[in-house]
């Protein structure tokens, strides 16, 4: 078998692509890579299709042995990756011969690290996606276990290795950390007008802490409570929907969320900021600021354009595509 043999998956590792779209009306959670930016860069480093499946590794700790020659890319939370003990770059490509061992330490900051392979990991596809939503209990679409083999496509040939091997993503292209001065954006949500204006003001003037009740389904935050208005019936919820349950503490829904929810929604965090939030650990602080849909769509377009327009020179320098 071709691929990567998982000796130890670390605290939690799942296969994720862009998610399972088109089936939310049946109650299927879309799942998908929680840090859209890091996941896209990992694939971009290998000239992969943009939707290729990567391994999403929580808090590092992974140890794996190559069954065959593998050309991989790594991005996201920096966890001092090494191959047979020799350090390799945090946001770059790496090569493994059969029998080589890749080891990731616990990241010094952030949470999620992405591991891509040329052509994408070939785990089971269900309804167009390889994304694992662990709680849905679908066969072979769950959390990676010790002894699993991550199947890889054939290749890479020598030419691809020569072309891809020196690539790295410079720090300036990565997302600012969520706990920096750069606040997470909030699009006014469907129940914005039902909330108390003082509560809404506190939402953007206060610090909120990430609690330990945070995972791929959603992040529960601790900070000033908002009084939730009543009388909402369940409706579709998106990645980034901010729910305010009875205790008034906001919860930001992420990729593995349920498809509908009945708590009032004062705001929605846009997708690229969800990516930053998903990199936070319990205890990290975040701040919010209001933004409108147009600003968030523009940011998303700029990100897509950046991926389209930048590639690497044979020496591994990131440069703007000519023409």
């Amino acid at each position, binding site marked *: 078998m071709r691929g990567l043999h998982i000796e130890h998956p670390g605290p939690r590792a799942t296969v994720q692509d862009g998610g399972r*779209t*088109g*089936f*939310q*009306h*049946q*109650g*299927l959670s*879309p799942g998908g890579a929680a840090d859209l930016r890091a996941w896209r860069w990992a694939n971009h480093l290998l000239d992969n299709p943009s939707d290729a499946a990567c391994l999403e590794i929580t808090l590092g700790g992974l140890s794996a042995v190559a069954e065959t020659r593998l050309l991989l890319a790594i991005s996201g939370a920096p966890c001092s990756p090494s191959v047979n003990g020799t350090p390799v770059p945090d946001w770059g490509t790496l090569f493994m011969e059969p029998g080589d061992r890749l080891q990731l330490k616990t990241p010094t900051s952030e949470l999620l690290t992405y591991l891509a392979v040329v052509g994408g990991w070939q785990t089971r596809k*269900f309804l167009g996606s390889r994304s694992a939503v662990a*709680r*849905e*209990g*679908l*066969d072979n679409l769950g959390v990676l276990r010790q002894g699993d083999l991550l199947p890889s496509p054939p290749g890479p040939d020598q030419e691809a290795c020569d072309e891809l091997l020196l690539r790295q993503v410079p720090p300036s292209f990565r997302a600012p950390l969520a706990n920096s001065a750069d606040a997470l954006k909030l*699009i006014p*949500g*469907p129940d914005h007008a039902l909330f108390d204006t003082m509560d809404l003001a506190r939402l953007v003037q206060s610090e909120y802490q990430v609690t330990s009740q945070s995972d791929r389904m959603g992040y529960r935050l601790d900070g000033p409570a908002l009084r939730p208005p009543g*009388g*909402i*019936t*369940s*409706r*579709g*919820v*998106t*990645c*980034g*929907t901010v729910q305010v349950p009875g205790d008034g503490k906001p919860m930001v829904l992420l990729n593995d969320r*349920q*498809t*509908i*929810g009945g708590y009032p*929604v004062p705001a*929605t965090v*846009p*997708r690229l900021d969800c990516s930053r939030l998903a990199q936070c650990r319990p205890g990290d602080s975040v701040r919010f600021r209001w933004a409108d*849909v*147009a600003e*968030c*769509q523009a940011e*998303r*377009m700029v990100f*897509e354009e950046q991926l389209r327009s930048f590639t690497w020179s044979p020496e591994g320098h990131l440069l703007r595509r000519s023409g």
Partner: protein
Amino acid sequence: MAAALPQPRIVPTAEDAVLIEFSQQIDPALTPLIAAWSDSLREALGHLVTDLVPSYGSITVYYDPDRSDFLNIIRSLKSISNILPELSDQPTGRIIELPVWYHPAVGPDLAALAEARQLSTQQVAKIHSDTCYQVYALGFSPGFGFMGQVDPAIATPRLERPRVRIPAGSVGIANRQTAVYPAVSPGGWQLIGRCPVRLFDEQSLALLSVGDRVRFRAVGHDEFLELGGDDTPFEGAGEQP
């Protein structure tokens, strides 16, 4: 018959989603219209829409923000909405019959509910299976359909503390809604029986759709087993929730 449809609110709720909301209330009469709207929108905007989630009084439309923007989507939705109110409000969904073995062994809350309402367990089963339920929404887990309205005589709130593990097929009540758990999961609905039919599998996907109507049919133990039901007694049957 022409539909008397409230003019919906159409607002962007995320950079990739627009909400079409008719009502904040649970209204069984609205569901056929929501289902019909969903079908029409899917047909008209299928090339732009990535997901379309009907629920109670609303439809959430998801789109790819790399291929369209919210002004374009809202404009499309508004122009389509001008022609949609002509839709019939006659129920369009299928009628699906679901067999249920109403028994304390698999419905750990059945006896207490019957006692509290001074009914026999058979009467609770009859009241539950006499109503034709509307499927309002799917969610919580794949194939989980929220249905109503449950007769007030047997309507009962969710448990204070949800159970950690509920067997697949469990039939529950939460206030005036009822549902069948498609798979093993945690849950807080009060359980009165078990259904042998699978509500979700990977080949045929979800059995129920929003707009379908469901009629439960009380079956005995033998028929329950013949239909493939698992009569393993509920493990926490004696526990105090």
